[in-house]
């Protein structure tokens, strides 16, 4: 799944560690999210949306909305 976490974090001028602390996750998890190697749980996705004060659809892009994922 594509996401805009990296861009939104840069806009706030937070480090990965700062964002991790605000979301109560590890820095490793923020990195995995930003590099789009890990899709967050629904609960974490809601926390991210709430923290950046944006609707979920503006942060996460479901691949079916764009090109279909290669593996399906």
């Amino acid at each position, binding site marked *: 799944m594509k996401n805009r976490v990296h861009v939104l974090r840069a806009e706030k001028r937070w480090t990965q*560690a700062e964002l*991790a*602390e605000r979301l*109560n*996750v*590890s*820095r*490793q*998890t923020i*990195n*995995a999210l930003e*590099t789009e*190697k*890990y899709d*967050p*749980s629904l609960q*974490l996705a809601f926390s991210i949306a709430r923290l950046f004060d944006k609707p979920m659809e503006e942060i996460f892009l479901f691949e079916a909305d764009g090109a279909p994922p290669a593996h399906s």
Partner: protein
Amino acid sequence: MNTKPRLSPDAAYRHYNRNLWVAMSLYTVLILACVYLIKHSNPGPWRYLLAVLPALPVIWVMWSLYKFLTRADELQRRLHLEALSVAAGVTALLTLTYGFLEDFAGLPHIPAWWTFVVIDIVWGATHCVLRNRYK
């Protein structure tokens, strides 16, 4: 209820790592001391006590790991649980196969505590591989 502020996942990991090193150092000291005492003493019932003494720091490690996993975030927990599942499966397969080789093919006996070593090595190695996937 716990009134202490909840450790962040990163702080929980550092805490676990520190406990792990202290406990394993204690384990090393106890192992060396117990082996020495058992070699330089007459057999007696207190040898049972000496033999199980090094397991105490390992109980502490298990407890620390449990605490860490309850404070870890979803990705950390997933990586560890996946690595532990692989370690459990591989260890079960290896010990079962070697047990049969011992019984039926006459291979030399390996002490049971090797199970602990194998599970830790496979767990650590699998965790490293899985963690790199998310980097």
